[in-house]
């Protein structure tokens, strides 16, 4: 029981971190149709910038400045890169962002070096908030939960309840009509892309010291974020949220399950033949393959429900 509750809490925290990262991507993907491969790279830039800024003026200013800088970088990418490539269709955009991953990765290595940065959480948040079955719940995790919840609500309100959000949605679904009505559609695209990048930057500020800030961080976060976006469904912030929490829970529960597929059918009196691939597959404990489960789920959802959990349209 105790381990179930602890895992529930762990899964929630990790899920919220995933959501912070994935929300920016889902925003860009669902509105512009651009699957931005470089999203996790912007997350990495956010962490590195936050580290550098926090060395001079502290963590909390960095929490604002680093995402803004990431937003500016995003805007620059959109204006001077994506917009030109856009004319050649989605494949060109995809390849463009794919190339960016390598350029950003290499630049980060050249600027900050290959070693992990000593980016630590601020001292004011470095204390146990409460004790949960003898295990500390650090205040910083509470802070992470708070920031990501605030982010979810703000983004949702902005898109659904304001005039700006209305124009954005119009420009993205009916660009010609919005343009004919006098709205600057290219600028809307820039704003969306920059906004998505700023959200990735914010996730970087928070995730960089929760995990480690090093050149491999983009590569390690990249794939799982795509899984969340595809699983959650296109055009749905809520779907992205549910998928993030679900992935967080799956990964944290999988680790504590020592049983294998074979344990499920053992009560039926089945026995397995000797030492072969099938036996190995049936007896491998869930804990050992936990990190692969999200990818298996993504394949399943692509097969049976291509639009994703709460997607509003097919790609």
């Amino acid at each position, binding site marked *: 029981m105790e381990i179930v509750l602890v895992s529930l809490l*762990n899964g929630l925290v990790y899920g919220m971190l995933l959501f912070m990262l994935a929300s920016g991507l889902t925003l860009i993907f669902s509105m512009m149709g651009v699957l931005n491969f470089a999203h996790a790279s912007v997350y990495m830039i956010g962490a590195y910038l936050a580290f550098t800024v926090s060395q001079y003026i502290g963590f909390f200013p960095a929490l604002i400045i680093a995402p803004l800088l990431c937003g500016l970088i995003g805007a620059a990418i959109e204006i001077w890169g994506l917009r030109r490539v856009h004319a050649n269709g989605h494949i060109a955009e995809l390849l463009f962002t794919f190339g960016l991953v390598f350029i950003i990765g290499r630049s980060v290595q050249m600027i900050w070096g290959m070693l992990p940065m*000593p980016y630590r959480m601020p001292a004011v948040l470095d204390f146990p908030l409460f004790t949960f079955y*003898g*295990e500390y719940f650090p205040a910083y995790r509470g802070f992470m939960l708070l920031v990501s919840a605030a982010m979810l609500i703000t983004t949702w309100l902005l898109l659904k309840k304001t005039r700006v959000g209305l124009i954005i949605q119009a420009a993205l679904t009916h660009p010609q009509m919005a343009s004919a009505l006098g709205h600057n559609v290219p600028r809307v695209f820039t704003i969306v892309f920059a906004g998505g990048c700023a959200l990735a930057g914010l996730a970087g500020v928070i995730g960089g010291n929760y995990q480690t800030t*090093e050149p491999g961080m983009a590569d390690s976060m990249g794939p799982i974020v795509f899984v969340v976006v595809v699983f959650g469904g296109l055009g749905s912030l809520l779907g992205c949220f549910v998928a993030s929490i679900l992935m967080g829970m799956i990964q*944290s529960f999988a680790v504590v399950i020592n049983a294998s597929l074979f344990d499920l059918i053992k009560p039926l009196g089945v026995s397995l033949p000797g030492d072969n691939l099938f036996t190995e597959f049936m007896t491998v404990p869930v804990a050992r393959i936990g990190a692969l489960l999200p990818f298996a789920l993504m394949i399943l959802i692509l097969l049976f429900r291509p639009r994703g959990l709460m997607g509003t349209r097919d790609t």
Partner: protein
Amino acid sequence: MRFMRLICYSFVLLGLLSTGRPALAEDTIKLAYTDPFSGPFASGGDEFLKIFQFIIARKNAAGGALGRKFELVPFDDKLQPAEALIALKSMTDQSIPFVMHCTGSNVGAALIDAVSKHNARNPDNRILYLNCGALATELTNEQCDFWHFRFAGSVDMRAAARIKALPADVKKVYLLNQDYLFGQSIQHDSKKWLAKLRPDVEIVGDELMPFGKVQDFSPYVAKIKASGAQSVVTGNYNRDLNLLIKAANDAGLNVRFDTFLAHLIGGATAIGAAGENRLTSIMEFNGNVPVDLKVPAAEKFAEDWRTSGHDTDFSTLNFVTMIDMLTDAINKAGSTDPLKVALALESLQEKDMLGQDVTMRKDDHQLLMPFYAGIFSKDVKYDSEHTGFGWKNYMTASATDLTLPTICKMKRPE
């Protein structure tokens, strides 16, 4: 069209230029070095390259070998066996007599095989493989080869030292390792040595985790806590270790981390205070070993490395031993011919920079060398990576302690 033609011409020109390059000074001894210099493991390769440049510059200043200087020729294998074989082809085309390689047993196994075949087919253009860090025990057991010399302790030797260095009051351990060749052999050998040396210790958890894929270690921390372990014995390194210790510290989990590789570059920076007085590692060297053993020359060597513009610590004493033994073998053989040097290297007995005995065993070409166990502490003369914490040595496993049996049946050239 004209543009395309221009591109074609420029490539032709480029080709002419590179073939027309004058043969480099004939009088250097070329040492090829292959390791990952790009991709996720580039930080390791990059660092090792700098260390080799440092060691070789000193060796050359001291006169090199046979009055000739060493020349380092790096190749990027991206930690891929296929890339390493392409690099090997390029080395043999340039008639480089020695290849050094330090990262990845998968690459190591491929190189052993390819070098052996190449040498059998081209007796007049042989190459000698000097292994400085592909650690799988098999490489000097089942897969041992005459043309391969390993100047680094095998997983088996490390595991023996690791379990020896487990404090007597630790009675419950949790094994957590990465789910790939290296992690699995650490898991296997740790269990073997626990059974042999510490039958009083109970293994309360034995787990393999996906290599480099876990982003959140809190679930593992919860599981370790529930198991009641006093120590986590782990071969994890880099991110897989740093995140684990961070998560344990955040959750207030009070256990020791008895690791194999926490001293690797970047570890001290990433872990920091979270590892104080509970993180241990098994090392070839650290700045505080010469202080304890009172060897000023080695202390100065590490100091020189640190003050010559490197942010990191010198820890790979076995690289120095390798270059030293190679130099002596070349001098003894009076030639850089790989066969003569290999025969001179076999059974070569020396004292390393710290004055400890090291031997290149003839049976399997494994260097018998000591290891030092250290705990991450403030109470040290030299700290790691400017963190304020350094490795305080509490146990030495000598080369004699780590002389383990081998099952190598080596085929020797006539």
